Every structure is written in structure tokens, then in C-alpha cells.
């Protein structure tokens, strides 16, 4: 189809134009990490008996004995070859660590986003249908309540109530009960892998494990999503074409959903894309609180101990995902909005 082709070309162009940004991120992170006052060599050579010599060994091992431009050159070369270096913390290649942990983060963030959208879109629509009514204010208050609690507090509270007090939730220690058997990793997404393995029980266990952290994260993003839904819904409800729809006697459902909502959802897609990328990078605290083996908590730990490679790898990964999500949003937008291709 012509429009899809055009969309793809546009996406391709956008991808190319985002490469400089990725490169910028790469270099910037590299430099930022070197500015950190901590010396990873000292930290990691900190066995109860490490001395100067050990520190030098580690330094050499990390390539820190070279000059900065040299290090950068080596780093860029390595990245070019897909080698993100090795994490001192886990002792593993960063690429491998990230590859293992990314599905966890993605699964969590996606679920959270879906929960948030499921809650936010109807709420936003409801509020927009009766602007300034009690419902509107109620929705607003409810959404705002979600954003005003730090995620680590809501997370700990949810654990306290649902795990500790009520015992409804499984123990908040990662993606799946340690005693459960793990399905063969095909996609890395547990929910998908369980389904592929045909293990419904396991799927349910994984889903339960996912609920609390996903809710914690979702609570935080319902507000912006509901807000944008309401706003764009108000715009499209007030637009001429909705009046046209009314003037020809379409049913209320058709007016609200087919005419108003379908148009209003476009900005929501954009915001959802942004929300997704930010959430993925910012869910450090949720991952910490729920012992979620995701990439963000990995990066946080690495950052505190100045383990350069994982932080650099993580930032690069996040930036790439940011670019990819933007592309995806673009494509979705192109499909959802026929006008996009002409712009």
C-alpha cells in the first residue's frame, strides 16, 4: 500500500536522522561516567586484602590505564562490533546481562502501560463527556492521587498490604516464584514463553507476580495519559466533524467512539510512546522495590559502584529503545492517521 510505504520511508528517514542523537548519547555517557569521582578499579579491587597491585590489575583489565581519547576510541570500536564491555559487578558481558534483563523490564513496562491505558482512556473519555462535572473532578483527583506518591512508597505499601497483610500477592521477589519451573526461554517474555510452552498455571503465576509492580508503575502514568485523553477528546468532541456526525443522527456510541475517540487517540499514542520510554528508564525504584531483575536496577547498582560498562550499555540501550519506540509511534501514527503521510 502506498501510504504504508510512505510511512516506512518516513520512518526510515527518521531513523537515520536519529543516529546522531544515539552517537551523542554514546559519547556523552562515556564522558559522564569518567567524570564520576569513583574509581571502579579501587572499588572492585576491594577484597579484604586488596592492595595497590590489585588495583592496578583491575585498572588494566578495565583499560583504564589508557588515555581518555584512546579509551573512547576503543569503546566506540567495541560498540561498533556489538561488544558493550564486561560488567565488574556481575562478571558477565554487559550485552549478555542486558539481553537477559531487558525482557523483564519490557514485560513489566508494557504491562504497566497497558494497565494504565485501560484505566486512563475510559477515564479521560468519561471526564471529557462531562467536562467540569463531578465525574470530571473525580477523575482528575483520582489520577492526580496516583502521581503524587513516589513509586517506592506506593510499591512498598502495596507489598505491605497485598503480600504481608493479606497474603493475596505472591512474594515480591522477581518475575517468577523461585520454586516454579521456568519455561524454555524463547522470547524472554515469561508470559509469552509460558503460553508457548502451554503452561497455563505457570502463566498465571507469572501474571500474578507481575501485577503489583505493574500496578505501582501504572498508577504513576495514568494521570498524564488520562489528561491527554481528556484534552484531545474535548477537542474532538467540540470539533465540527462531531457536530456533523450528530447532525446526521449517528448513534451516541458511534459518535463518541468512531468519530471522537478515534481522532482523539492520536495524541494519546504519541504520549504513550514517550511515557513508555521514560518509564522504561525511570522504573529503577520499582525494580528495586520488587527485586525485579530488570535493566534499570542493574544500571543503578552499576552506577553506585562506578561500574562503567553496564551504565554505558544501559544508557545506549535506553536511547536505542527510545528511538525505536519513536519510530513505532510514527508508524502507528501513519497507519492511524491518513494525514500523517502527506506532512
Amino acid at each position, binding site marked *: 500500500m502506498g501510504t504504508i510505504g510512505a510511512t516506512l520511508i518516513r520512518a526510515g528517514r527518521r531513523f537515520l536522522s536519529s543516529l546522531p542523537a544515539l552517537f551523542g548519547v554514546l559519547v556523552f555517557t562515556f564522558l559522564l561516567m569518567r567524570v564520576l569521582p569513583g574509581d571502579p578499579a579501587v572499588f572492585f579491587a576491594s577484597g579484604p586484602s586488596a592492595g595497590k597491585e590489585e588495583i592496578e590489575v583491575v585498572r588494566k583489565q578495565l583499560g583504564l590505564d589508557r588515555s581518555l581519547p584512546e579509551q573512547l576510541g576503543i569503546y566506540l570500536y567495541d560498540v561498533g562490533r556489538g561488544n558493550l564491555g564486561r560488567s565488574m559487578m556481575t562478571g558477565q558481558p554487559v550485552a549478555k546481562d542486558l539481553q537477559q534483563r531487558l525482557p523483564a523490564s519490557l514485560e513489566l513496562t508494557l504491562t504497566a502501560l497497558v494497565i494504565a491505558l485501560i484505566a486512563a482512556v475510559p477515564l479521560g473519555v468519561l471526564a471529557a463527556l462531562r467536562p467540569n462535572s463531578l465525574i470530571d473532578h473525580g477523575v482528575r483527583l483520582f489520577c492526580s492521587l496516583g502521581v503524587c506518591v513516589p513509586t517506592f512508597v506506593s510499591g512498598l505499601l502495596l507489598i505491605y498490604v497485598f503480600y504481608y497483610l493479606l497474603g493475596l500477592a505472591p512474594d515480591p521477589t522477581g518475575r517468577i516464584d*523461585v*520454586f516454579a519451573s521456568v519455561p524454555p526461554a524463547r522470547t524472554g517474555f515469561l508470559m509469552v514463553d509460558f503460553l508457548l510452552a502451554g503452561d497455563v498455571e505457570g502463566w498465571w503465576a507469572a501474571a500474578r507476580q507481575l501485577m503489583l509492580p505493574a500496578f505501582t508503575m501504572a498508577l504513576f502514568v495514568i494521570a498524564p495519559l488520562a489528561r491527554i485523553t481528556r484534552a484531545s477528546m474535548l477537542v474532538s468532541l467540540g470539533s465540527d466533524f462531531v457536530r456533523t456526525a450528530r447532525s446526521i443522527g449517528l448513534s451516541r456510541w458511534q459518535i463518541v467512539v468512531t468519530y471522537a475517540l478515534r481522532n482523539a487517540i492520536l495524541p494519546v499514542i504519541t504520549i504513550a510512546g514517550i511515557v513508555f520510554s521514560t518509564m522504561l528508564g525511570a522504573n529503577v525504584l520499582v525494580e528495586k522495590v520488587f527485586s525485579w531483575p530488570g535493566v534499570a536496577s542493574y544500571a543503578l547498582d552499576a552506577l553506585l559502584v562506578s561500574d562503567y560498562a553496564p551504565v554505558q550499555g544501559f544508557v545506549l540501550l535506553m536511547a536505542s529503545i527510545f528511538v525505536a519506540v519513536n519510530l513505532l509511534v510514527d508508524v502507528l501514527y501513519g497507519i492511524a492517521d491518513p494525514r500523517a503521510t502527506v506532512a
Partner: protein
Amino acid sequence: QSRAETLRYVTAATVNTLDPNIPGSTREAFALSMSSYDRLVSFGRKQLNGKWVFDLDTINGELAESFSVSSDGLKITFKLRPDAKFHDGSPVTAEDVKWSLDRCVTAPVLGKAQLLTGSLTSADQFKVIDPLTLEVTLPRPDKLALPNLATVYPIIINSKLAKSHATPEDPWALSWLKENEAGSGAYIVETFKPGEQAIAKRNEAWNRGSPDKPASFKRLIIQSVPEPATRANLVERGDADLVIDLQASDVQALEAKGKLKVISTPQYNAVTFISMNNKIPPFDNVNVRRAVAAALPYDDMFKAALFGRGTPLFGASWADGTPPSGGYPIPQPVKLDLEKARAYLKEAGVPEGFATTFSFNVGQAATAEPMAALVKESLEKIGIKVDIQKLPDAQMSTSINEKKLPFFTEGIVAWLPSTDYFYRNFYTGNQRWNYSSTDNAELEKIAQAARFEADKAKYEAEGKELNAIHFEQMFQVPLWQPAQDAVMVANLDGYVYQFTRQVDYRNLSRK
């Protein structure tokens, strides 16, 4: 296996390597290696105030069926267990032991610096006599030689297996062993996900346990749960069997509820200090240091930061003003006395006080932060303005290493705690662990001499002398030995406090 046969242990940190020798190894990695690898010898255990702790003075054979020290103390001969097998079924031979010990003293690994303290420095010292006999020669008698072989590092590796994974650049198979285990220990590592969990299953053939039988638990799950409150919840609800490193307040609460077993052992090989850099003014003035020592709110700090869980090292009264013992650490005759502190400041020539920074590690914030607040408050009363600095872990270690911090709190641990060891490693030289940058010729001389002192009484006298210098000069202020709180389900048995400050999983069983 049933849940009852599985031990689920949750911890803040993570197992990051299967070979404890790799720079950067965590305490959890050490703990796991204790179970997955055997060493030639191991420490015994003893009871201290009714709690089981490791005993430095009892060395038992582990892979060694027996060992003997020559009368001149220069030769140690190990006879290996004939029935010991690696996890792949191949027998443990003296060749394997030699390769492993050679690796420990020659490869760029952590063991090198450790074994040095036991006069084990070169591969020439290890000699294979026959497939089951190994002889270790020492340049001089060293009472730390044998204990060193019981520490974490000198693991005995399946050398054939390891060598098959060695490369010309990596002759000691460092990178392979990091992710693969080639030991003969009580547990065989099944899953290893750094930062998440490690799972091991019981080695049924292992018979080095106390009554010559395999470990009690069939399966071992070591899981990282960074949030301390969650760890407390887990063990309280019975989802985890054992947890250490809880927040003091949580331990207190769990203890009060009485449902769980809480074993609180003072970490008698660890000390928490408030350190002053003796080379940075004004702390180069001994009277300033004394003033600080007299102005610290010891009791409040102990209560608020530690919830009283540990052994205080303050508030002693030394009869006749001399150290009552040559051990280390011993309680110091210091207490909060602002008048005295002011007097010292005056004597130091800074009666108005001064301004300084007090640093601590983000990782230790739970105890250090309340401490810091109290220190600041108290020192301000004698005119010392304190700016609190909270440093990320790597930054803290770097600053300490570069001797940039004037005033901070840190802790030390010694695996082989003896007075001379402490003084030599933590009070001499331009090394990271010499927090106070102490440079005291007399102290160094005595400490070095004590190292090879065979006479117990003389050693005790030298220890007292060192303690006296320490108090005299007030290099830094020992505060306390924090307790190791292990909280476990009521039916768990056999917990022993280990030199690694970790659990030895092999000791544990379920009633």
C-alpha cells in the same frame, strides 16, 4: 525436592562470580564458593556467649584427610582424602591441589594478596609428593599459613577441567571459572544468574560434613532482594528460610514478635570506626583527635544507629590506665565528655573549633546516616562544624584510597583476626585500609615483630603495647563491633557465624 528440603536464602547483594578469586567478588560469591568448592582445610567452630562462631584456632581437614606441620614449622604436609571427587566424578589429586594453589599465588587474583599474609607467595612452595600428598614449604614459620589455606580464596579446582578451558591469554581459566564451577564442594551450582539468583543442588557424594555425610538441604536458593523491608517480610511470612543483613529496626521488631529465630552474633572480626586522617590538618594533631574522641555521643549512636545490636568498644575503664588485654579490638576508655573535649581542643590550639567534612558510604546509610547526624550535632557543641558527605560506594573507596577524606566512618573486617594482623593491615603503610593514614614507627616495629612471635605471653604483651599506643595516639576511634543478625524460620538449625560474615550453607539443617 520438597520445599522442606530446600533452603531459600535472601540477601541484599548478589553472587557475581563462581570463582571467589575474581576481583570484585561479593560476599555472597564467597559464601557460595564455600559450598561449591572445597579447600584443603577449614576452620572449626566454637561457642561464644552461647552462639556458634567460627574458631580460628581449630583447623580441620577438608580435602586433607590429615596434615602435619614439621617441628621447625617450615613444612606442612597434606594427605588428601582418597575418596574425594570433583563434581564431574574425577578424583581430587595432589596435582589439582598444586595447580589450584599455584593459581592462587601467581594469577592476577585476589588470593594472591591474602596468601601473602601467610607467607605463601610462590608456586615453588607447593610440591606434589604423590597423588595424594602435597607438601608446602614456608620461608619461615608462620602461624597464619595454615589458617590462610582455610580462607575463601585457595579453592581446589578440577585442574584438568579448568585447563581445558584455559587459553594462552588466560592460562588460569579465569574467565571460564567466573561463570562455571569446577569444584568438589557440597553443592553443585545449577543456575547462576548474577544479580538475580543462584541455585545449587546437593552433592550427594560429598562427605566432608561434620558426621561425614552430605549437606542437609537438597537444594539451595540464593536470591537477591535489594529491599531490606521486603527481606524481613519474606522471612516473617516463611517464604524465605534465612536472611542476614536486615535493618536493625526490622530485626528488633522480628525478635520482639518471637515467631522467628534470631541469632545475633557480634562480628568479632569486624570493627566500625570513626576515622580521622592523621595526615590532614587539624587531625594531624593528636589533641584534636582526642577532642573528637571525647565529643562523640557514643551511647546515642549505638542506640539510634545500631539499636544496640553489637558489642560496644567504648565506655571501658582501664584500671591503672593500661590496656587490660593484648587482643584487638578491645573496648576503649572513651566516653562523651564535652568539657574534656574542649580542653583538648584548647590544648591543640584550636579552642574555637574548626570546620570539616564527615563522610560515609551510601551503602551504609542505614546506620551511618543517623550516626553522622549525631556526630554533627555533638561536635558542633564544641565548635567543630561538620558538613556531612554521603558518597556512593565507589567514590567512597576511591577517596579513602587516595587519602582524601579527613573524617569519616568505615568498617574493617579481618578474616584471620589477630592483634598483629589488625595492626599491620589497618594501621601501617600507604594502603587503602590504613584509614587513619597512621605512620607510627614504633607501632609498625612492634606489629611486625609480633607477627612471628611464637611465645604467647610475649605476644600478649606486645598486643597490650600496641593497644596502648593506639589509645595514646587515638589514630581513629573504634566504635563497636556490629552484630551479625541472622533471622531464620524457627525450625532451622546449625547456624554458625563465619569469618566471611556470611552463612555457611553446609552447616544448616531443618529440624
